[in-house]
């Protein structure tokens, strides 16, 4: 057997007046990969922290590999490897020193810790930079070292909090490969993400959370079906006329963020849109099909827009 999964039932977590999690329940079968999908502030990190015994629960129960997080936290820690939201490695130490330290802390003797560090550095493509201080690493390298650090000693359950946020496309791809590798080994994986695409790529099941509550759950296919296919985006003026024209012939036409979108679209929709616009004598600047964004999934599933949109918020400089 694969050593166990994760069970969360009626989980509740309160910070002062703010309820971060309410009635959160989900299961990760042994060997499965579950994606916890939600926007900023949804409660992903809080859930992960409760599971890895960093935060006490305020209600409900949770267990990892059969160990209850409240009654047997030591058992949980011995079964779970956590990679937190922000790469937690020591900058002034080298990649190798970081890994050896974790090995030694987890009771590998010196040669075993060194051997394991070497193994992981090679497996994660960090061999060349192994003896460089981590501060010279790229974001992607840091993140891989961070993940490697939590795999120094094998655990049946691995928890990854936003493993690819802030990485460039290349770094993201590398991380996805690593996760795919873990999955092939039969490790039970719980990963959080803000990207539907990522959950789609990596997870067997997706748990969608918003404002601390589970709003939907299912396989990526099921969720997408509930959203209904792709989105057709039309950039054309005058806006009012475009809306009117399309609404006469199609369902799910909306205006959002300066463009007109048609939900539940496919290639037939595209042809229909082109035809409709031509008949009305409107020349479109752009018409394209794309996957629904997390925002649109949310809208489709909850009827309201998620609080924040995905994407990095830049700190304002100056005053």
């Amino acid at each position, binding site marked *: 057997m694969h*050593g166990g999964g994760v069970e969360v039932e009626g989980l509740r977590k309160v910070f002062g007046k703010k309820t971060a999690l309410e009635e959160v329940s989900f299961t990760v079968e042994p060997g499965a990969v579950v994606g916890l999908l939600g926007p900023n502030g949804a409660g992903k990190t809080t859930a992960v*922290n409760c599971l*890895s*015994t*960093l*935060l*006490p629960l305020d209600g409900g129960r949770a267990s990892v*590999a059969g*160990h209850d997080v409240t009654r*047997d936290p*030591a*058992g949980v*820690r*011995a*079964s*779970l490897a*956590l990679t*937190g*939201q*922000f*790469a*937690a*490695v*020591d*900058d*002034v*130490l080298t990649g190798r*020193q970081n890994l050896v*330290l*974790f090995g*030694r*802390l*987890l*009771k*590998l003797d010196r040669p*075993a810790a060194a*051997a*394991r560090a070497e*193994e*992981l550095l090679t*497996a*994660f493509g960090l061999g060349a930079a192994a003896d460089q201080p981590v501060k010279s690493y790229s974001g992607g390298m840091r993140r891989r070292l961070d*993940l*490697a*650090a*939590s*795999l120094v*000693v*094998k*655990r*049946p359950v691995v928890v990854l909090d936003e493993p690819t946020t802030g990485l460039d496309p290349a770094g993201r791809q590398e991380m996805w*490969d*690593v996760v*795919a*590798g*873990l999955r*092939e*080994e039969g*490790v039970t994986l719980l990963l959080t993400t803000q990207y539907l695409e990522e959950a789609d790529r990596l997870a067997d099941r997706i748990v969608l959370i918003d404002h601390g509550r589970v709003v939907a759950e299912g396989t990526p296919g099921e969720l997408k079906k509930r959203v209904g296919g792709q989105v057709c985006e039309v950039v054309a003026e005058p806006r009012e006329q475009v809306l009117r024209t399309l609404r006469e012939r199609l369902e799910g036409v909306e205006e959002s963020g300066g463009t007109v979108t048609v939900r539940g679209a496919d290639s037939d929709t595209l042809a229909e849109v082109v035809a409709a616009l031509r008949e009305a004598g409107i020349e479109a600047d752009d018409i394209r099909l794309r996957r629904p964004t997390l925002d649109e999934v949310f809208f489709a599933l909850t009827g309201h827009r998620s609080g924040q949109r995905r994407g990095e918020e830049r700190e304002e400089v100056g005053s």
Partner: protein
Amino acid sequence: MTASTGTVPATGAAPSSEAGLANLFGQGLLLAGRNIRLTSAADTVSTMVVFPVIFVFGFLALFGNLLRTHGVDYAQFLPPAIVVQWMFSVAIGAAFAFAADRRSGMLARYRSLAISRGAVVVGRMAADSLRALLAIAVIVATGYVAGFRFQAGPLAALGFVALAVAFALAVSAGTSALGLVSRDPETVSATLHVLYLPPLMVSSAFVPADAFPAWIEPFVRHQPVTAVLDALRALAEGGPTAGPVLKAVVWLAGLLAVFSIAAVQAFRRAT
């Protein structure tokens, strides 16, 4: 990529593997080593060597004559005060380190590992004790050049060092409680650098209690920093030591108890 396949399987260690003194000290020592490797040598030299020397000589130059007119041998009187000042500085360093570990996520990571629950604290205390010892050595050596002497024998001198380190650790417990609720080491450190001044200066550190205005003298005489300074001076100069030392130890035990509760609370919540 077969990331976690390896020759070193260590899956699902027994739950009890966190407990025990061997784990506490073994893992604590590993983390102490990490803490020491993390501090830059240049920084340690300037804060724990250069500045204490400047302060000893600076204060002597500034106030030596003034205090002589008051009948105080300042070369003998001052070094314990500078020692106490630097023990505060060690404690502020501990708060800085905890806040930094919180910000970087290292603290959360350590807490999520199957290691002894107290290892992080032991690691911090061990590294801080080492810094404290370095500062004490530097200050006592500098004081020696200026005329400071241990006059009550080697055992009392050892007691001096032990009491100073104990003071550093007790104060560290309090500052750490603050460091552990913050993620901003710079602010914590800047705040503490202002906060420690009143208890240090309004004590018998730099002038004897009787040189204070009468209204505040009782406070000066009975506050814990004065108790520790009195004990340190007794251990350095000889004379009756049991009374002052006992008073200091009681104070430290009380402070440690209160601070530890706060620190443990903060530690349990630190993510």
